[in-house]
Structure formats: structure tokens, C-alpha cells
């Protein structure tokens, strides 16, 4: 069973629909016990970094930290991926999980913000999440803040600068783009996660 974590931000339904479509068993939950009981955890999210406030010093936040530390496959999507980093300039008083180093920052003024639309992936070799996904495949983005390229970066995208499109380390995965809105490429990525 995959737990899709509902912490009051964004439209979780589209992630659920995509996983349903792939035949995965999913439960949308805001209960720490359900997160603890799940085989895999998906932390979706779209919108403002401040909506992660509810993951701060709450039992749900602790359950997520424990799930990530337990070796259970964990996928952060968009804001959920940004949560895996130290934090974001978008809301400096809220800390991320700090699993990957660095803060999410605004795009440079040289490009329009938000970054909206389909952009291509430069995929690092050996990514499990992106297994079978062709180099330069297009995925759908909508975000104003980006995560830096770090040792765990599994794919990068160029928009004014190079930023992390996907990260992975052991059981922890994150994507800045929306796999649930990225057509067949996105579904293939979610399928890889289901099969990790």
C-alpha cells in the first residue's frame, strides 16, 4: 500500500489517479499511523512552501521523517521534493527535512517565473527512478523555486540555470516536475517508483 500524504496543500487527487491508473494500491491519508503502516510514501504538493508548516513539529511530520529513515521508498513531488532539502527562500522560517543539502531558491530574473510547461531532462546514469526513461524526455513543471544540483541529483533541467529535476539516495526519491501530469513519461516514472 502506498500512502499519499495529505497535509492540506494542493491537489492530491491527480497523484492518486495516476497511481490508480497504474494499478497501485493507494490510500490518501493525514494520519501518522497510516504513513507508518504503508509500504511506500508519496509526499505530493504544489503551491507555497509555507503549506509545509503542518509538517513541522507535528506527529505527521515525525511519521514522515521516520518513514524516510526506515528505508521505506519515499517519493516527494514538487513541493514534496523541496521538503527533502534544507529549506526554501520562499519561506525561510520553515525547515525542510534536510535529507539533501541546500536551499531552494528563486529563478534568476533573466527568465520568466514561474517556470511553467514541458522541459527536458538530462538524466544521470544509474537512476532507478528514471530507469528506461529516454534522455531529453519532456516532463511538466510548474514552480517558482528550484532546488540546487547536489550529489544526489538524478536528473537536471535547464531554465535560466541548471537545477535539480530529480534526486535519489537509497530509498529517498524526489521530482520537481509533476509525473502525474507528464503523460506517458510521467507514468513510467511513477511505475518505476511502484516497483522499487
Amino acid at each position, binding site marked *: 500500500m502506498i500512502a499519499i500524504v495529505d497535509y492540506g496543500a*494542493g491537489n492530491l487527487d491527480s497523484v492518486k*489517479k495516476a497511481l490508480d491508473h497504474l494499478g497501485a494500491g493507494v490510500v490518501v491519508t493525514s494520519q501518522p499511523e497510516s504513513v507508518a503502516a504503508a509500504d511506500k510514501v508519496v509526499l505530493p504538493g*504544489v*503551491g507555497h512552501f509555507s503549506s509545509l508548516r503542518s509538517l513541522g513539529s507535528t506527529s505527521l511530520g515525525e511519521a514522515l521523517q521516520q518513514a524516510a529513515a526506515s528505508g521505506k521508498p519515499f517519493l516527494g513531488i514538487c513541493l514534496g521534493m523541496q521538503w527533502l532539502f534544507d529549506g526554501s527562500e520562499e519561506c525561510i522560517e520553515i525547515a525542510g527535512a534536510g535529507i539533501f543539502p541546500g536551499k531552494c531558491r528563486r529563478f534568476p530574473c533573466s527568465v520568466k517565473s*514561474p517556470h*511553467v510547461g514541458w522541459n*527536458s531532462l538530462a538524466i544521470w546514469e544509474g537512476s532507478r527512478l528514471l530507469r528506461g526513461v529516454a534522455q531529453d524526455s519532456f516532463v511538466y513543471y*510548474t514552480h517558482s523555486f528550484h532546488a540546487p544540483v547536489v550529489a544526489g541529483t538524478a536528473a537536471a533541467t535547464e531554465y535560466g540555470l541548471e537545477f535539480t529535476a530529480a534526486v535519489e539516495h537509497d530509498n529517498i526519491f524526489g521530482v520537481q516536475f509533476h509525473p502525474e501530469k*507528464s503523460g506517458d513519461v510521467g*507514468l513510467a516514472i511513477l511505475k518505476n517508483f511502484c516497483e522499487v
Partner: protein
Amino acid sequence: MLTKRIIACLDMDGGRVVKGVRFKNLRDAGDPAECATAHARNGADEIVLLDITATSGNRYTLLDAICKTARSLFVPFTVGGGIRQLDDAAAVFDAGADKIAINSAAVRDPALIGKIARRFGSQAVVVAIDARKVDGSFEVFIAGGRVPTGRDAIQWAREAAACGAGEILLTSMDRDGTQSGFDCHLVRAVAEAVSIPVIASGGAGSARDFVEVFHDGCADAALAASIFHFGIENIAELKRELHDAGVPVRWPC
């Protein structure tokens, strides 16, 4: 590289997709869910569903169509029409939309843009502007193009962006449904005035029109309805032509 988006728009009336010329003479073009998935399969980067009867119509019909469409659609899905307050937007998001488009309500109450953006994120708020050339400048019309507002489209786009809009969906009423090409002058003026993406709409008739609106109009995306519904143009073929003309598109898709 960030690509230029091709967006298929479905105008819906009473639960059916329709298309008219200059918002009139509506013709039936099919079931929303079927049309949406067919367009996505064909290479549409995004789907927009506009309920053109919503201001006086039945919300249940719209919400039901959104539910059915969202179930099998794995590309971004925007819904507009009749969204007057935060609760209307929330119902549309709950039904499965990724973004909402607001038009008349935003003109009447610009604060609504910020209210929806704060709850659902700016990325989820598209401000739709219907503009018509009047005495050398572009005037904003509301209520499905029926009511002139006296407002300048470029200034309104700027204000909408400042209020928290994530994208502008800009329709040239003069060109809508005519297949005589986008109004590149209008699109460029707005695209240069705001830092958020601008979706050009109204007038798509050929691949060349799309090339022009991306090159000359500086559009981030282009939307069309009529040319995609009746098989006049295949989106995959359109994208190949754009690719050949040097426009970055999601290709192959």
C-alpha cells in the same frame, strides 16, 4: 529547453463540447472526456475546458464533466467558466482540475485572484482576458464577451499578474473562431508587459499561425479549439511543423 505549449481548448455547453465563431453559432463537437483524452493522445500539451454556459448554468454538469475528464487525463487540465468565488474554485479543484481560469469575476473583484492563489498556489490560477480592439487599443470584455469594461487589456494583465495570477490566457475576440491567425500585436504587448506565461488564443487556423505567434507574438503557449475538433489539423503534425520551423516543442510526444 522549455518548450512552447500547444493547448487544446474545449468550450463546453450543457455538458457537450461546442464551437462557434466569435462566441456565436455553436456547433456540437463531442463528449468532453473523450475529446480531452483524444487531444492528449494526439500530442496536446495541456487541456483547457471552458464552460461557456456556466454563468447561468448548472454547476453539477460541469463538475461531473471535470471528474470524468480528469480520471483519464495525465496532462495539465485547466477549467474555467462561472468561477465567482473561492468556493467555486475549490469545487473545481476537488473535481480534478489542476488550474482554474477566471475572467469576469477577477475583473469585478481582483482580490479573488490572490485569495485563490494563496490557497491553491499561483500556478493554479489562470486569469483569462477577452480583448477586442477598440479605437486603436485593446479593451477588456467580460461575461463571455458581451460586456465591455472600458479597461485596457495590457494594464489589466499587469494588475492580474501583480495580484498573483500564474498565467494569462489572452483571447482576441476579433480573431476568435475565424482561423485567420492570432493577433500577434496584442499577444506581444501583453507578453512584454508581464513576467508570467501568456497563452495566446483566438484565430488559430494553420501551423504558420502558431509559428508566428511564438516568434512574433512571444507567446509561451498557444491555444486553439476549432481547428483541433473536426480533424482539420492533427496536433502531432502541427508540432512536427513547429519543430521544423525552429520552435521548441515537446516532440516527439
